[in-house]
């Protein structure tokens, strides 16, 4: 279990990397750490990179969806990036509601989306 949650600050955005076979408590620790960091750094965007997750079950999906909602309440935007195709297919068949979650193919595209939404806010 990682003591320090992998959160990298990139300008106004935070990059969070989820990887490996995660225990439920670890997923919840990461959720708390990210919301804390968003509030502390006043980040405007959060990229959650899930490319390193070979499995996302309903619990992990629920925490990710909740994290996205919390980040939004804090006034920032969260985007999930790098979902593996097999994981995406599994989530759809499992029936996890993820429609409100913004996604992008990879971190680069996700970052471009975050920049785009900042421009919208400025306009």
């Amino acid at each position, binding site marked *: 279990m990682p003591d320090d949650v992998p959160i990298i600050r990139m300008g106004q955005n935070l990059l969070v990397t989820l990887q490996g076979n995660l225990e439920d408590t670890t997923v919840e620790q990461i959720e708390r750490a990210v919301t804390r960091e968003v509030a502390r750094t006043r980040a405007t965007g959060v990229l959650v990179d899930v490319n390193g997750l070979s499995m996302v079950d309903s619990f992990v999906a629920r925490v990710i969806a909740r994290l996205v909602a919390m980040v939004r309440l804090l006034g920032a935007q969260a985007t999930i990036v790098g979902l593996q195709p*097999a*994981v995406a*297919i599994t989530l759809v*068949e499992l029936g996890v509601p993820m429609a409100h979650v913004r996604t992008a193919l990879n971190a680069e595209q996700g970052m471009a989306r975050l920049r785009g939404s900042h421009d919208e806010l400025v306009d």
Partner: protein
Amino acid sequence: MMSLSTEDALLTMTINGEADLLRVRSTLRAAAQYAGLSLTAETKLVTAGSELARNIVRYATHGQGMASIERLEGSSRRGVRAVFSDTGPGIADLDEVMRDGFSTGGSLGLGLPGSRRLVDEFSIDSAAGGGTTVTIEQWAR
């Protein structure tokens, strides 16, 4: 990490805490790879197993139960069977728990119906007070 070696056609493990979910997932993944399942079928099997093992931790008496993971050899293909059993309170109304969104534990209520959608074969055996056994199978195409 535990994995199925070529000698282990059947592996049984106890489940009594969250940490055991990781063991169930990695054992299922190794069995799926041995059986030659596609990555999608493998991911679905591991996800279903994770849901069912979590059900034991959440709902069985003292969160305790067993998982047996078995390699299957068909005439022309291989598969994996996993059996999750507990001696917990059991389920009085199976139709109810197999419906999307039914939950007594504050979850999404997708564990059982969702798992059924992810695997080739799914069966559940339970009675109030008599424990619960869920069997799933996934086959290589």
